[in-house]
């Protein structure tokens, strides 16, 4: 006999068993080992017996039930074995390095044991010995069971199943927030229900920050400048121009007009809302207009030539004339501010032409004029 109890113990080096492991296989293995350790004392007793009388005359091999020759090497492991009988129950080969695994009374080499009984990992495909994570209809090495999104180990903290993927709680909440069109706070890892604040490219609850200048708790309208966050009021004070239309800071070209600053594309005609883009604009009552609409709205289009009037404007009867075209509407005689003229269908008529009107028309015009005066319209 060459194997001692000590070396036998060494040989029998099963993986450490965890009482907590719920895997049925490991439960069975634990029971098997328990039995074995139970036998252990008995075996030791036997050994002592053997060593006492050195008589193996009636001892038989556990496998072949034959006796042993006197000078034969015997393996003593949960019974006695011929060395050639102490082999893997599956491949009949000696156990590499003496390591074997016992299951339901049979001994297996590590390889065959794994092939027959051990689960394989859902991620790396390798056999799992030791702790097995059963999840998502598969088995996993504890080190292989990771969050699909952030690769954090899920073995101990648990996981949430999300569209066939295992996610950690944070990533799951983030996915959910994404699905709802909401942001997920980069600091407290919860959904941002109200407005969010972006800082260094990540969304946060605004209340995690305070203004870099005045210290007030920030709201969603806070602004970032040089990687620091400021409340709107402090930000505005720092001299960054704010667009008079969109109320947002102007970082590119600034237009100064109407006593305000504007984004180039936000400085538009009050009528057609097209940006001036550097072309001339006209101001009236605090509003800016493009050339066409200013004249269209404020009547500075010449009644005769229908062109925009540059320069002096003659106004009468809700119409306007340019210097060249302010004339009697009948004889075309030029008129000045001082020229007296008559109204005829809301057009100017000089005295010469008016005098040439037939009497009956003049009478009617006079009557209409008098009535208008009486009713207070003139």
């Amino acid at each position, binding site marked *: 006999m060459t194997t001692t109890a000590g070396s036998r113990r060494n040989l029998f080096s099963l993986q450490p068993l965890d009482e907590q492991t719920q895997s049925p296989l490991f439960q069975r293995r634990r029971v098997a080992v328990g039995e074995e350790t139970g036998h252990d004392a008995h075996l030791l007793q036997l050994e002592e017996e053997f060593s006492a009388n050195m008589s193996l005359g009636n001892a038989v091999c556990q496998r072949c039930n034959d006796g042993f020759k006197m000078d034969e090497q015997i393996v003593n492991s949960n019974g006695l074995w011929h060395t050639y009988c102490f082999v893997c129950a599956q491949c009949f080969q000696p156990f590499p390095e003496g390591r074997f695994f016992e299951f339901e009374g049979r001994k297996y080499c590590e390889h065959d044991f794994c092939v027959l009984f051990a689960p394989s990992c859902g991620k790396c495909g390798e056999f799992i010995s030791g702790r097995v994570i059963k999840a998502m209809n598969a088995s996993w090495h504890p080190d292989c069971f990771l969050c699909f999104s952030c690769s954090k180990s899920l073995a101990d903290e648990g996981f949430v199943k999300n569209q066939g993927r295992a996610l950690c709680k944070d990533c799951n909440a983030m996915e959910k927030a994404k699905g709802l069109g909401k942001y997920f706070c980069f600091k407290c890892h919860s959904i941002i229900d109200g407005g969010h604040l972006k800082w260094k490219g990540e969304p946060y609850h605004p209340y995690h920050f305070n203004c870099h200048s005045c210290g007030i708790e920030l709201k969603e309208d806070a602004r970032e400048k040089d990687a620091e966050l400021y409340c709107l009021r402090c930000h505005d004070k720092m001299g960054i121009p704010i667009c008079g239309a969109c109320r947002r800071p102007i970082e590119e070209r600034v237009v100064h007009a109407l006593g305000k600053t504007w984004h180039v594309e936000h400085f538009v005609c009050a009528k057609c809302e097209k940006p001036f883009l550097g072309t001339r604009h006209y101001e009236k009552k605090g509003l800016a207009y493009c050339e066409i609409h200013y004249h269209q709205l404020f009547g500075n289009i010449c009644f005769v030539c229908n062109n925009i009037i540059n320069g002096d404007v003659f106004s009468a009867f*809700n119409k306007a004339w340019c210097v060249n075209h302010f004339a009697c509407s*009948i*004889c075309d005689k030029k008129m000045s501010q001082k020229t007296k003229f008559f109204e005829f*269908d809301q057009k100017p008529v000089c005295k010469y032409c008016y005098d040439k009107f037939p009497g009956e028309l003049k009478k009617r015009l006079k009557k209409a004029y008098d*009535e208008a005066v009486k009713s207070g319209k003139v």
Partner: protein
Amino acid sequence: MAGKLKKIVDDTKEGNSTELDLVDKGIVNILEIPGFVNLKNLSKLVLAHNKITSVPPNIANFLNLEIIVLFNNAIEELPTTLSSMPKLKILNVGMNRLSTLPRGFGACPMLEVLDVTYNNLNENSLPANFFCLDTLRALYMGDNDFELLPPEIGRLKNLQILVLRDNDLIELPKDIGELIRLRELHIQGNRLTVLPPEMGNLDLVGTKQVFKAENNPWVTPIADQFQVGVSHVFDYIRSDTYKFLYGRHIAAKAAPPAKTNDKSKKISRIKK
């Protein structure tokens, strides 16, 4: 007289002016103006207060003419060639003896202002294509004989000024409500009793607008609104109450009020 005219024409030609003003010169025939045919570059021709009886068709040869004023003459007919003038923008033939406008007149490509005030025109005087004049921004038709305004008026989308003063209009077409750019409307001195509710689309109330509607035999509700002000008239014709009343009024087909304008003394009528 002819000598004087020749001098003016020569001055115009020598001064390279494109404007010819011959106001109150007793001219009877345009073609008798000495040297006139040589002024090919003319852009403006003012012949107000003369005695011209007809306009020669070859006026259309003056391709640069933009403004023609023939106010207060004795013209009874205009040439059809007018509609071929490529630059004609303003035509004033007020105070003449026109009882018709020439065939095809609506083909004028550039006409912006047409003044036919004080003639003898009515709804039958207009050529079929008259309302193709969509470049028109002002149409002066006061002192004529219209009893009805053709509904095609709604096609003159650029019209800003429409004068129908002192005609014999008994109603306005609802299409007048389509003249969205209109800012001046004169309908005083007609036989109108109601306004189409569609006129509520128009913006004629305000300091920039003109709406003259006196001397019409308005139905009482409208007359009452005129008493308080023009803005009240427009508020009223936009109301459902008025739409209902208007519908009933039209359905009743009441006889139009009698003509009140005495036109016998109009110089456009008196034969000399």
